[in-house]
């Protein structure tokens, strides 16, 4: 069936080309006209098309503006209102220029199309005119720059002392939010400690011990696989396993370099115990300044919250920050947009792999009380770790060795699950 269809398309294509060739030869030879001689009729036709195009162009733009110009609901953050005002002012300016310039650009060709009896006006330059269209854009741009930078400065200024700090941690392909616990301090974290039970690599005495044990088990498992397979595995595979073992040993030695330090009277290894880690959604109190700290585990992601006019990249190795004050609760926004199912989202906006288009976390804005109630329900890192250990005791990579001679990693399951 498809082959038939394709044959048909090819035949039609050939016919089209032949027809084009005929038209081509006819227009060229029958009229005995040189291609470079543009007839009066052709000039007039194109002049008319210029004007018609302009009209269609403007009308479609206005249609789009009316139907789709109201692109997002009102900004749900304090700085977002400023951004929107700035955007509107800039839009008005550029839309005016857009209309004026495009009008002149399509109107002049319409008006001054070629006529034999006319001669073009010889006008090589005019300093006064040129000065005018250098100075006017300069003044307008000065306004845009100054206004824009004032807004930028406000947005990027230091967060206040009592701002709520929330860490947003990205990995392929989900987000995790972390709240500092009652001690108000985030636990120190280290990427070397990341494991199935400790997705953010929070440093505690237990997590170091646990990770070291996990690595040791992995090393053993790989060594066993190597012993068993040395005779029949291809040389490349053997080498891969040997490499893997060397890497694991280096990894283990890096654990010893994690330093203890004190901050505000709290030992860094204890500060993490009461951190609250949440997935799927995170909550923020309305009207309170929140400072996000973004970290990434693997590649660059970008935390984009269009409803709050907020965005910041999340870069592995380099924490970034963004502050804002949410002003509209989820419930109020549902009324505003007249949609009971509306939810704020944070989405990834820096290409990060196959499931990039679905890397999101729900954002809930609510009153301070509701927020506090929600937060207190979230388990602390210490409690969570204990609970998870009970539910799913230490992963046993050794089990995998039987069928799987690939170098073993503890988190392959986690990876495929998030795909």
């Amino acid at each position, binding site marked *: 069936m498809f082959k038939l269809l*394709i044959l048909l398309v090819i035949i039609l294509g050939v016919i089209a080309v032949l027809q084009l060739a005929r038209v*081509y030869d006819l227009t060229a030879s029958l009229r005995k006209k040189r291609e470079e001689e543009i007839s009066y009729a052709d000039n007039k036709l194109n002049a008319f098309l210029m004007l018609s195009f302009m009209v269609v162009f403007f009308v479609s733009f206005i249609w789009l503006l009316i139907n789709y110009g109201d692109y997002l609901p009102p900004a749900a953050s304090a700085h977002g209102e400023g951004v929107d005002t700035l955007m509107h002012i800039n839009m008005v300016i550029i839309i005016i220029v857009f209309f004026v310039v495009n009008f002149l*650009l399509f109107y002049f060709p319409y008006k001054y199309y070629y006529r034999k009896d006319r001669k*073009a*006006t010889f006008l090589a330059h005019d300093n006064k005119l040129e000065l005018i269209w250098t100075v006017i854009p300069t003044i307008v741009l000065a306004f845009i720059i100054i206004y824009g930078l004032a807004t930028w*400065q406000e947005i990027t200024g230091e967060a206040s002392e009592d701002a709520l700090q929330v860490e947003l941690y990205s990995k392929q392909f989900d987000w995790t939010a972390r709240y500092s616990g009652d001690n108000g301090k985030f636990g120190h974290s280290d990427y070397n400690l990341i494991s199935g039970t400790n997705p953010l*690599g929070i440093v505690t005495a237990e997590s170091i011990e646990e990770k070291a044990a996990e690595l040791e088990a992995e090393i053993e498992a790989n060594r066993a696989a190597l012993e068993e397979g040395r005779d029949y595995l291809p040389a490349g595979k053997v080498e891969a396993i040997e490499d893997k073992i060397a890497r694991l040993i280096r990894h283990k030695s890096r654990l010893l370099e994690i330093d203890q330090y004190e901050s505000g009277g709290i030992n860094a290894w204890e500060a993490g115990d009461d951190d609250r880690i949440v997935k799927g959604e995170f909550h923020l109190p309305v009207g309170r300044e929140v400072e996000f700290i973004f970290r990434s585990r693997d590649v660059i992601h970008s935390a984009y919250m269009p409803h709050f006019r907020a965005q910041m990249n999340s870069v592995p190795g380099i924490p*970034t920050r963004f502050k804002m004050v949410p002003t509209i609760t989820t419930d109020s926004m549902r009324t505003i947009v007249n949609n009971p199912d509306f939810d704020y989202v944070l*989405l990834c906006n820096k290409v990060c792999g196959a*499931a990039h288009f679905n890397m999101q976390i729900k954002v809930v804005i609510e009153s301070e009380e509701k927020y506090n109630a929600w937060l207190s329900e979230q388990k602390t890192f210490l409690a969570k770790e204990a609970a998870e250990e009970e539910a799913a005791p230490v992963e046993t990579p050794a089990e995998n060795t039987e069928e799987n001679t690939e170098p073993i990693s503890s988190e392959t399951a986690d990876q495929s699950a998030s795909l």
Partner: protein
Amino acid sequence: MGGHANHHHEESFISKFVFSQDHKMISKQFLITAIVMGIVAVMLSVLFRLQLGWDGESFKMLNFFLGDKWAPEGILDRNAYLALVTIHGTIMVFFVLTGGLSGTFANLLIPLQIGARDMASGFLNMLSYWFFFVSSVIMLASLFVEGGAASGGWTVYPPLSALPQAMPGSGLGMNLWLISMVLFVASSLLGGLNYVVTIVNLRTTGMRMTRLPLTIWALLVTAILGVLSFPVLVSCVVLLIMDRTMGTAFYLSDIYIGGEALDVTGGSPILFQHLFWFLGHPEVYIVILPALGISSEIISTNSRKPIFGYRAMVGSLLAIGFLSFIVWGHHMFLTGMSPFLGSVFVFTTLLIAIPSAVKAFNYITTLWKGNIRFTPAMLFSIGLVSTFVTGGLTGIILADSALDINVHDTYFVVAHFHVVMGMSAIFGMLAGVYHWFPKMFGKMLNTKLGYAHFWLTIVSGYGVFLPMHFVGMAGSPRRYYSNSEFEFLHWVTDLNTLISTFAIIGAISQLIFLFNFFYSVFRGQKATANPWLSNTLEWTTPVEHIHGNWPGALPEVHRWAYDYSNPEHEDDFVPQTVPLKEGEVAH
């Protein structure tokens, strides 16, 4: 060089058509290669527009053509989608609009318009093409390797591009991408050095810098930008290759991926972006400036009027060229860069709007009270000014860091740069092809088909990118395989379908051009020496190409290139070779 033209030795097929050192042949080679690359890039874009316009719908045809790896069950695969987007961008930016545009017109026009027998070094020029050719072949081949082509977007930000574990496209496909890029840069540098040296040293008697046609000025500034910025891309790429293969950590730090904490610390992914955009932003102007030069020439010729404000046009080219080196940070407002540094980049970026505005108004004044002949080249040039202005204006939004926050990496950006550098530069390239086809091939293109081509192209071009701004303002991120996962994006679905429909119409319209082009090469009307009644030197050469360009002595130049409708002369054009009349004041 005088004797050069006279020794007529028989040339073999290979030295005439393949390893030619003649700038006119090299120019044709660049053009044909760019057209082939352009066809591929357009086809890739149609494929991913199918997915975006009809999200999740199954096209059995796709499965038939692309197979199970790319389109299982007739739906484009997610990884294939990212590869298509990446290679579409790479081919368009580098191979069509840099190699294709500069390569074609710098090679054709520089010797012909300044009155030189050939480029300063024909050999380097030949090498430049063949590096470009090999680089193109490698880039196309990368589509078919295991794991697919590079998929991290044309900007290939690490760590995504550095770690094979991060995505299938970061394996062999990425290696080929990087190798192809190194060769491409070699090609650009060989070409660029040659262009600069030729323009500076080989101008004919009387061709002062102030009499150069604006095409040459534009190509000169372009070549200088390329020579200064492309080496930075090489270093950027080489460091990435080292990170990928030698265990260095220039761009990597604290990474846990594929169940393993990597042994890398201390690098910075942001360093890559600084290096990349130090090339990447001048690159935008490397793409657009030749197109602006071409349109200056064509608009003046076909308005039968001197280009308005020649000196201002040259000045704005230089200003844009200079400023393009100090604005790269506006691509990185949201990387956590110091907000103060961000402010500096806002300032320098918005400054570019001033020389750009001067250019736009000068074009319009050139049209004013002209006697305008609508050749297809003229139509495309007017289209270029429209897209340059329309796309430039949205740049004001993006350059404003506070506004960039909410439109960064959305379809608003995609629409912006497709209008201002995609459409504009393609229009400039097409205008150049229509205008100089008689010079390149000695034949005329069919005008009627040219009209059909232009009107369909501008309608479908704006049909694609005008609505796309609104998709972006609604918060739709770029490089998303599907918008279905977010409820707030559902309402732009219709627009996406509309955009894809126009994209397909636009792609099909290009067949008219391809037909016209290849048919005319063989069966077109024979060209006359100066079909457009133009002033510049290339139209004083014979229609049949000869080695050395002019049969006798080199022409002498007595005036600027824009004496159209000069009241002191009867004809409405005065070629540059015509001596000044008694009492006539040179412009």
